[in-house]
């Protein structure tokens, strides 16, 4: 159970230090998910995201030295019965497209078949995440099949079969950081107030 800055966040922070420019919008949207997995810096989305991201309140705090801490606070309310296992901090409040594999994907395969085709962009390329592997969709047949480049964004290509019915998640905005934790059981109407802080030391 860990919290990681994503790889693009890391390089953008280095760019800020080197004077190459910080290109990211302010991270202020918190979204949650119910899937399982090991958080990777190469992730572009949550494990099985649910509901719409919530715009949080961003502030600058002093923890040890003046203005050394970023804080984003948001309260998310469950619209159903969920076991929340991960959250992400995003630069936009967009909801990611989601679908499922309708057939297994073999190691090295560059064609995938999915349900929910129309939920994804109709222009190419765009990225999707399946388990911990990020793929770039480079073309599609208009109904249920994508041609993909496997293992992009620094992620590792799965060396085992990805089973049918595995969730496919699109990229919605940019995920600044991702955090996993033991599942938190919620009923309809329950809320969680999250405070995500980053203190530079």
């Amino acid at each position, binding site marked *: *159970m860990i919290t990681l800055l994503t790889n693009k966040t890391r390089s953008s922070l280095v760019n800020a230090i080197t004077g190459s420019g910080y290109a990211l919008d302010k991270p202020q949207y918190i979204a949650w998910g119910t899937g399982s997995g090991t958080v990777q810096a190469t992730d572009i989305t949550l494990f099985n995201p649910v509901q719409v991201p919530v715009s949080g309140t961003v502030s600058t705090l002093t923890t040890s030295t003046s203005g050394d801490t970023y804080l984003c606070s948001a309260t998310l309310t469950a619209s159903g019965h969920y076991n929340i296992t991960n959250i992400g901090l995003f630069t936009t409040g967009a909801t990611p497209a989601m679908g499922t594999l309708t057939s297994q994907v073999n190691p090295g395969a560059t064609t995938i078949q999915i349900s929910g085709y129309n939920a994804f962009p109709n222009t190419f390329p765009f990225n999707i995440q399946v388990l911990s592997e990020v793929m770039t969709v480079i073309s599609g047949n208009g109904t249920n099949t994508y041609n993909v480049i496997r293992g992009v964004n620094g992620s590792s290509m799965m060396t085992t079969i990805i089973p049918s019915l595995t969730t496919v998640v699109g990229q919605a905005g940019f995920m600044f950081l991702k955090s996993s934790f033991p599942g938190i059981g919620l009923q309809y109407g*329950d809320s969680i107030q999250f405070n995500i*802080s*980053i203190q530079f030391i």
Partner: protein
Amino acid sequence: MEHLPFRIKVDATIIRADGVQEILGTISSNTIENDNDYSTDEQDQK
């Protein structure tokens, strides 16, 4: 010992639909690997 340049913490409080609050404290960070239970701020300082 490696000195991390920043600390990330995710603190959480559950607010049940009936208004009851459950303070979970820090549920994840970049410096600790939580086990199967939630840690408190005090435990995080170990």
